[in-house]
């Protein structure tokens, strides 16, 4: 009896989401400083690079961290290459021969550009992380799938558009997204700017699932049911900042809501660290103007954040949640008559 209870408890502990908090006892300062001390390395000698990044670190998670951090700090995202590929893939999607030929040709160009200029698109990041990890005997995989951001055209999202990684540490798989962690294109100029976001490293799979849809089911790493593609397309938009601040995005599951006048929109999150509730505000856009307002109610208990907001006017609104100056998520609300 005692034994079976112990086994049960063991599995209960072993199961559950794999994420960064499993490594709370590890300080990544050393791994990060090693990664950042090689800003001028090129990609002509990958075994040497992998060796330099990992040989002075004692744990697999630190070794992986150094590789991941180096890739995020040194590989530039090539926006024009991304657009060109997107355009061609869409053009050839119904012509399998041309589609395949384009992919082959593009792969070669991409590797060449990665090698010579350290510029790439997602798969290049995920690929490099995997190769460098392999060379240090770490088990890492590339995950292909769909990524959804604020500018994604969800009505026409038919082809996979994003790649990220899974890494096996202490016998368990974890998720990370080196592309999105490395930086974002400047919204005005579309030029890529390095701006490391630590939230994508060993992220909570449940949060990750809000805007990452893997082609292979096994890479959800979720307990219970995996989201359907429709659920994924209709999920709220979350931004890079969400990964810094949120542990979980619990409610709502959908982006769009139909409400009656005086009805409340209810939002529920689990935070990574406590914040000052005064820093929470909404930007509500009715199509003509945006207004910065405080939500009707904000409750924060043990990092569990509950926000409610009442809509008193009819209309169609884009509701953006901000914490301080960070845009976290967006929902759309249609308010009708009672």
């Amino acid at each position, binding site marked *: 009896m005692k034994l079976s209870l112990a086994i049960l408890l063991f599995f209960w502990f072993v199961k559950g989401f794999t994420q960064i908090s499993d490594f709370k006892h590890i300080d990544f300062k050393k791994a990060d400083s090693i990664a950042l001390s090689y800003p001028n390395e090129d990609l002509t000698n990958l075994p*040497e690079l992998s060796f330099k990044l990992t040989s002075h670190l004692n744990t697999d998670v630190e070794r992986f961290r150094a590789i991941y951090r180096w890739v995020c700090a040194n590989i530039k995202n090539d926006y024009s290459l991304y657009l060109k590929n997107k355009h061609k893939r869409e053009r050839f999607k119904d012509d399998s021969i041309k589609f395949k030929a384009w992919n082959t040709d593009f792969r070669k160009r991409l590797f060449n550009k990665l090698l010579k200029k350290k510029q790439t698109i997602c798969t290049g990041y995920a690929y490099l992380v995997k190769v460098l990890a392999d060379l240090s005997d770490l088990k890492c995989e590339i995950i292909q799938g769909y990524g959804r951001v604020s500018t994604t055209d969800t009505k026409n999202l038919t082809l996979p558009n994003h790649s990220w990684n899974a890494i096996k540490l202490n016998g368990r798989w974890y998720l990370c997204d080196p592309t999105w962690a490395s930086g*974002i294109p400047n919204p005005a100029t579309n030029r890529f700017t390095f701006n490391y976001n630590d939230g994508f490293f060993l992220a909570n799979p449940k949060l990750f699932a809000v805007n990452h849809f893997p082609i292979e089911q096994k890479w959800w790493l979720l307990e219970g049911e995996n989201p359907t593609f429709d659920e994924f397309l209709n999920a709220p938009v979350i931004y890079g900042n969400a990964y810094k601040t949120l542990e979980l995005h619990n409610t709502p599951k959908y982006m769009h809501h139909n409400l009656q006048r005086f009805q409340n929109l209810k939002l529920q999150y689990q935070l990574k660290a406590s914040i000052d509730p005064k820093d929470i505000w909404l930007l509500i856009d009715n199509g003509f103007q945006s207004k910065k307002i405080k939500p009707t109610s904000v409750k924060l208990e043990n990092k569990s954040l509950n926000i409610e907001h009442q809509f008193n006017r009819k209309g169609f609104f884009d509701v953006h949640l901000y914490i301080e100056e960070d845009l976290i998520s967006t929902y759309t609300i249609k308010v009708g008559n009672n």
Partner: protein
Amino acid sequence: MKTHVFTQKRSFKTIGLIGFLMMSLLAFNPTYGQSEKTTTEIASNARTVKGIISDEKGPLGDVNIVQKGTRNGTVTNEKGEFTFPVKLNTGDVLLVTYLGYETHKIKIKDDTSFIEIVLTEDLIEMIGALDSGKPYKSKRKKN
């Protein structure tokens, strides 16, 4: 008294189990000893390894060849040829890498002195969506 005999029996059993475990440790131990012996024996047999690396189109230059776990290494010339700068022993592992091609691991055998490898491309589909900090904007019908 009865209980005493019982515990004694049990402790014999435990000792037996420990004994068995220790024996099994001994049984595994010689393998380690043997492999060490082989390495030292072959140490005198260290040799220069040469080779040629190509892909489906022909010889491949700038390919990296590194001894696993060390910083010993070299790159191929334009003809895809290399001469490994350090003498190698049986059991050493070479990693052959070139960005975009599958990494090859070669274990040096007793008779390895020339290596010929055709690298295969990593057939990965290249895709990429960027993250965006732009606030979402609903498409609205124009009045």
